[in-house]
């Protein structure tokens, strides 16, 4: 058994035991939000950290999952799992359609286009009252269940979220270490060289954009079925898009464990900053700036460098992406 597999299994065991140490429901709910946010960050990291494309509109895909789940289960009384799947398909289709023109843009232009898209979706959530409930949102969203087992308590939902999160970690790792992942990193480095190697750059970019949207949508659905109440201001506007970017950058671009770390730090910080109200966005902006200046490889990269420095006198420049076993 290699060390990475061991590390991953240890982490899974630690997660399984964590609720035993924290029986307080408040802490458990924070761990659940960390898991939900980590799923968004894992997806966004594939796009930003590996393919080098920036999205400032991922809250929109998160909203599609949450609202899709909410509307399909409350208005149309669909089975919650089917609602999750249907929302995911919808988010994938919308990401695909919107990605075709947008991904022809690069750098700042792509960021601005996704920013605009996020704003449009937010406005639709607020204005389309008959469908989305407007600013008052949607209530009484049913929980997910397996047979007669309902994921309707914190502890039950905790295991569901983290099972999803660990599965998506494995999937991300497998993709990153595959031919697709190599091509992603290649286009990050030189699109011209990658394309002459036979990589269909536009299609690959579109593929990873759609995949990252799927992650965000799934996380949104989980959120809706957990809190059972959603409204546009909760996490479906620009501030959440920024938070997701902060998680990825702070955790470490192109580092899968970093996405979990980033989600942990940002989610916990969000709780601490709660008394600041809307000003927490400013705090996140500051953290993003500090992270880029002082921790260009994120917390995960910084930690890796620190442990290497302790072992050997000369630290290498960049840590290689993590590897997790295949599922």
């Amino acid at each position, binding site marked *: 058994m290699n060390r990475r597999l061991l590390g991953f299994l240890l982490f899974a065991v630690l997660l399984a035991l964590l609720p035993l140490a924290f029986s307080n429901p408040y802490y458990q709910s924070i761990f659940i939000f960390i898991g939900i946010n980590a799923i968004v960050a894992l997806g966004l990291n594939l796009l930003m950290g590996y393919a080098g494309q920036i999205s400032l509109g991922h809250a929109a895909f998160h909203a599609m999952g949450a609202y899709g789940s909410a509307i399909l289960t409350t208005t149309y009384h669909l089975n919650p799992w089917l609602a999750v799947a249907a929302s995911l398909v919808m988010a994938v289709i919308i990401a695909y359609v919107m990605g075709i023109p947008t991904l022809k843009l690069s750098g700042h232009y792509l960021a601005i286009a996704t920013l605009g898209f996020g704003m449009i979706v937010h406005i639709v959530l607020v204005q389309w009252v008959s469908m989305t409930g407007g600013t008052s949102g949607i209530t009484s969203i049913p929980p997910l269940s397996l047979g007669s087992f309902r994921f309707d308590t914190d502890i039950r939902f905790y295991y569901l979220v983290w099972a999803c999160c660990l599965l998506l970690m494995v*999937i991300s790792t*497998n*993709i990153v270490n*595959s*031919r*697709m*992942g*190599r*091509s992603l*990193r*290649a286009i990050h*480095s*030189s699109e*011209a*060289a*990658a*394309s*002459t*190697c*036979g*990589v*269909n*750059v*536009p299609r690959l970019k579109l*593929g*990873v954009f759609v*995949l990252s949207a799927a992650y965000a949508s799934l996380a949104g659905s989980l959120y809706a079925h957990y809190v059972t109440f959603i409204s546009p201001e909760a996490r479906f506007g620009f501030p959440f898009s920024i938070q997701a970017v902060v998680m990825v950058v702070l955790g470490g671009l192109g580092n899968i464990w970093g996405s979990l770390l980033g989600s942990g730090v940002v989610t916990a910080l969000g709780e601490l900053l709660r008394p600041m109200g809307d000003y927490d966005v400013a705090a996140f902006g500051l953290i993003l700036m500090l992270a880029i200046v002082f921790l260009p490889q994120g917390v995960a990269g910084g930690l890796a460098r620190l442990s290497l420095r302790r072992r050997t006198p000369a630290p290498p420049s*960049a840590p290689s992406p993590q590897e997790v076993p*295949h*599922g």
Partner: protein
Amino acid sequence: MADVLTLVQVRKVFGGLAAVDGVSFAVAEREIKALIGPNGAGKTTVFNLISGMLPLNAGRIESLGVRLNGRPPHLISAHGIARTFQNVQVFAHMSVLENVLVGCHRHGRHGMLAAAVRTRRLRAEEQALRAAALEALSFVGLAEQAEAEASSLPFGNQRLLEIARALATRPRLILLDEPAAGLNTHETVQLGELLTRIRASGIALLLVDHDMDLVMDISDEVVVLDHGEKIAQGPPRQVQQDPQVLAAYLGEN
């Protein structure tokens, strides 16, 4: 013999200035053809047109009877035309082996979904791709550095890595944009030997370089460009004595 590359009256205009103006030539199978000319003659532009990085304004580019112009770069690569870059473009933060594996990209079949669940077939395919990549690395003499990060290689080896990556696409033709630039005399001699071995393995080469010893030594034929126009074509010795070529290089009229 069939031509792996044919340019017919190719023209490219940048803001009113014809960077490439009515250029025609062909590269035969297993031929080493050199494309030379003073700075700004349009050599790199010709490469960018062939590899699909730039659209052309007039003319056509074909390979074995198939029209290439108008196709995106990855399909031109799939048609068996690989290239290297004047300003080396290795994937800096990937290992040497991974760089070459990207060259193997189109020989893999699995997509994102198969990768996600890491099927058994995928793992077998991955083994085959690694073997092919290592073979390409051995061919250029970089097998021992397979696990090193590409950016840590000395400059000359980065050039070799680009060639290995091009070989990994299993091309019929490689476009080499100044492969000897920045190499010392010894490295240039080794490069010449490598290029001859590549040709011997059945691959044609179109070479742009300023190292006239290398060009004259290994090329079968030389095409000379000046101000975007072809001013001469022929065997190296003949071109070297062409008065128009001498004038272009020495700046006489």
